[in-house]
């Protein structure tokens, strides 16, 4: 790691090096996002006592404090529209942070809520959003214990942006992370994918699909708690939000130095979501989820883990989708429905709908 951004040897010429400005793709959770973190944020934040924690780039930072391990995470929610089928930015902001803590093996304890409000934002809408936040916190059993409010001029925000940070305690003795992932590990997905991204898109773009596609946003702490209670030897978990399951699998493949093989037909996608994706030319593997977890578990415990997930209300649609292999390190390969194979790449930025 260098002291400052190495602009000369930067591998990403689009667009920062040439343009010195951010494009939407930098927030898309794909390759551009990772490059921003790797080349700009990490070098800037190095040299502090706990910088090594940041460099692990986990869903949460895990800090050793007085004999306990504290998980600490933060996320900002800038979803447009604010309301979408099955939820709004409020429950998303709570569930997202609860889930980032949970996949790190922590029991979520407390959240902060930072609200950036745009001048003119209707108070009744804000009331609904904050009430939903409270409901989500109560449902997940976490407390919102501190907060902040700022107001910006009209035209400088989409009504409300919410930042939540959260802390939780990591279970004793539990070691999770890409360094725990081994060839042979099985890969489980806790339920059908892509509903959240399509639900938001359908409202934002005014698309109607005949049936209403509802977000999958939900807290995962109960589900993950049950999984860990079962004794299944979990090596790693991650919630496939931006960039979808494809981004998550690629991140784990890259960080673990292993290959990932999945069976495409085993990845559950609801019929209406699949139809919407086919219609728009989107790949469900790249669409965001807000209530799903990808679990890496030792092969001998895969059945136990799958049964445990399926017997919890948040994981009824859980499926075994693939395994970790020693071959093709860092690369995700899918067996296609008709028996061929393909590489599942990390998306560059947001997916673009295809022309025809």
């Amino acid at each position, binding site marked *: 790691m260098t002291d400052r951004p190495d602009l000369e040897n930067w591998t990403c010429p689009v667009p920062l090096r040439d343009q010195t400005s951010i*494009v*939407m793709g930098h927030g898309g959770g794909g390759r551009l996002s990772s490059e921003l973190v790797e080349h700009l944020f990490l070098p800037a934040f190095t040299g502090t006592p706990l910088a090594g924690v940041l460099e692990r780039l986990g869903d949460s930072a895990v800090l050793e404090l007085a004999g306990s391990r504290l998980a600490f995470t933060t996320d900002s929610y800038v979803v447009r529209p604010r309301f979408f089928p099955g939820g709004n930015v409020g429950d998303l902001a709570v569930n997202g942070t609860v889930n980032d803590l949970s996949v790190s093996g922590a029991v979520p304890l407390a959240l902060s809520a930072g609200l950036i409000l745009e001048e003119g934002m209707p108070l009744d809408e804000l009331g609904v959003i904050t009430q939903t936040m409270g409901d989500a916190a109560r449902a997940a059993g976490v407390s919102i214990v501190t907060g902040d409010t700022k107001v910006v001029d009209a035209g400088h925000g989409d009504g409300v942006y919410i930042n939540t940070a959260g802390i939780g305690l990591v279970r004793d003795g539990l070691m999770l992370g890409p360094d725990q992932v081994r060839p042979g590990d099985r890969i489980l997905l806790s339920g059908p994918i892509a509903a959240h991204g399509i639900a938001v898109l359908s409202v934002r773009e005014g698309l109607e699909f005949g049936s209403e596609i509802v977000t999958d946003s939900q807290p995962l702490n109960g589900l993950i708690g049950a999984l860990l209670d079962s004794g299944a030897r979990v090596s790693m978990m991650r919630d496939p939000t931006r960039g979808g399951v494809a981004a998550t699998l690629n991140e784990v493949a890259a960080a673990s130095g292993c290959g990932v093989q999945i069976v495409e037909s085993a990845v559950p996608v609801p019929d209406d979501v699949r139809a919407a994706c086919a219609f728009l030319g989107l790949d469900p593997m790249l669409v965001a989820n807000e209530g799903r977890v990808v679990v890496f578990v030792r092969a001998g415990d895969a059945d136990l883990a799958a049964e445990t997930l399926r017997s919890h209300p948040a994981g009824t649609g859980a499926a075994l989708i693939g395994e970790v292999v020693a071959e093709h390190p860092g690369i995700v390969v899918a067996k296609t*429905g008709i028996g*061929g194979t393909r590489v599942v790449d990390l998306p560059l930025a947001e997916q*673009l*709908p*295809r*022309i*025809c």
Partner: protein
Amino acid sequence: MKYLDEFGDADLAKRLLDDIAASTTQPWALMEVCGGQTHTIIRNGIDQLLPDQIELIHGPGCPVCVTPLETIDRALAIAARPDVIFCSFGDMIRVPGSSDDLFRIKSRGGDVRIVYSPLDAVKIAQENPDKQVVFFGVGFETTAPANAMTVKLAKQQGIDNFSLLVSHVLVPPAIRTIMDSPTRRVQGFLAAGHVCTVMGLGEYEALVEQYQVPIVATGFEPLDVLEGIRRVVRQLENGVAELDNAYPRAVQPQGNPVAQQVVREVFEICDRNWRGIGMIPQSGWRLNADHADYDAEKRFEVLGITTVESPLCRSGEVLQGLIKPNECSAFGKQCTPRLPLGAPMVSSEGACAAYYQFRRLEVPA
């Protein structure tokens, strides 16, 4: 799911593959014309499942890929204007012009919007009477009716702040160019099903007749593509050249007369430059004289913008089926989806991007 699941059935795919393998006795080179079919082939690994003797050559049928560089540069010049809302299909946004793309124009404050239907752009024009709204009307015959409809509507309803940046291309002249090429290797075509849905099959009869080449209208799901391949191979093995329809659930011999009527009303045939390939006579549509007022190139006076393409990029040879994407020396090195030199690396329908995304295992690092 109706019309999706049954056309991706693994058992039926196996039967078609067995049938193709059983009837193949010698090497054949087939071209799938449409980028949507290339996407299906690579995404499902169809080419790996075919007998070694069957070679699939990826055709020039990705509208994003063949839109000329200078048209992209004109689009960028228009989109950068403060008085313009520039609307486009999603995957045109990242196509590189000579030094910019629409994403960067947007990041500098340009109002660039992805729309799902061209008619949405007309609606945006109605809602923003103080802005000029431009739709980037690219594509083959498939997208032409909806693009033509925007101008027809704008004219009917007096929406004068709407205009169309047109770069339409046509399949039959491209097939003719490929067949006339002295280096051609293609022995049979999978014609683009959705183009045939609009235009019908009539135009292809003359091509089959003149070049004695099998042409089979083919759909886009895995079984559709396999069935198209099966029918072309069967013709080749039997020494016949016929026009056939393997996509009858969408393609009628006469096409869609209503759609054709809208196109005739608004567009006229013109010569068209294809990115990476060059000028193909009578291979495009532009707005006709009655609708020239809605031509964005004229309205914004960008016809003076002309550009040359990167000498490293061999997309022209890829698009003509002369080389595979990974045979280009820039593939995966100077040219990746992140920094594409040529348009086939941009759209997920583009042959180079499809190779990069799904076939990297075969490419030496």
